[in-house]
């Protein structure tokens, strides 16, 4: 399955929207850089993510922390460190970055 990475805020770009349209059940989504804003609880994008329980959704911990979002993320988004990012990249057969 593919690993999809999104590095743009959903308020700025349609990267996440398009990614979610294409991501197949069972694939993995990693939010990084400004992509982590998509996970802020209660936003439209967070609801979209919550509705995709068929995806494994992660946010990069250091990008979440840098933006002060630690208390704003819902529990269905798992935080990931860099070694976890590397592990995901290896486990998935290909990576598609949405930028």
């Amino acid at each position: 399955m593919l690993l999809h990475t999104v590095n743009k805020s959903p308020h700025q770009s349609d990267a996440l929207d398009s990614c979610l349209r294409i991501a197949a059940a069972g694939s993995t989504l990693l939010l990084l850089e400004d992509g982590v804003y998509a996970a802020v609880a209660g936003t439209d994008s967070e609801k979209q993510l919550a509705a995709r329980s068929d995806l494994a959704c992660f946010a990069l911990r250091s990008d979440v922390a840098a933006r002060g979002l630690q208390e704003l993320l819902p529990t269905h988004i798992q935080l990931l460190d860099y070694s976890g990012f590397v592990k995901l990249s290896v486990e998935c057969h290909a990576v598609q970055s949405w930028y």
Partner: protein
Amino acid sequence: MPMPTVTGWSHSGPDVSDTRKSLLLILRSSPYGNGLARAGVDLALAAAAFDQDVSLLFMDEGIWQLLPQQDSAHTPGKNIARLLDSLPLYDIETLYVDGTSMVRRQLEPGQLGGNTQVLDESELRAFVEGFDQVMGF
């Protein structure tokens, strides 16, 4: 004077037949706003020239690349529509298009150049998982 010879050189180039991979390019950039559209087409042509199995999926602003009447005479860079027209010469016959991106831009399939096939959401999800490699431009 004899020509110098290089040992180990095969006239036909390296044999890539056993390294043939399927490659999907997801093209999401408008044709002249930046260099990404051109880079995507260049990669498609290069990969196809090396006998790789290349497919192109146009979505988001990449849809605009498919308008057939592009006149880039007074714009820097090559005409993207003409480059896309050359793809069948490289055995890239079908151009895949995201239906939602088209609808949002008020475009109908008949307005696009090339031999396009429109995919809906469920078709897209199955489609993208069928490739060895995926790259976005």
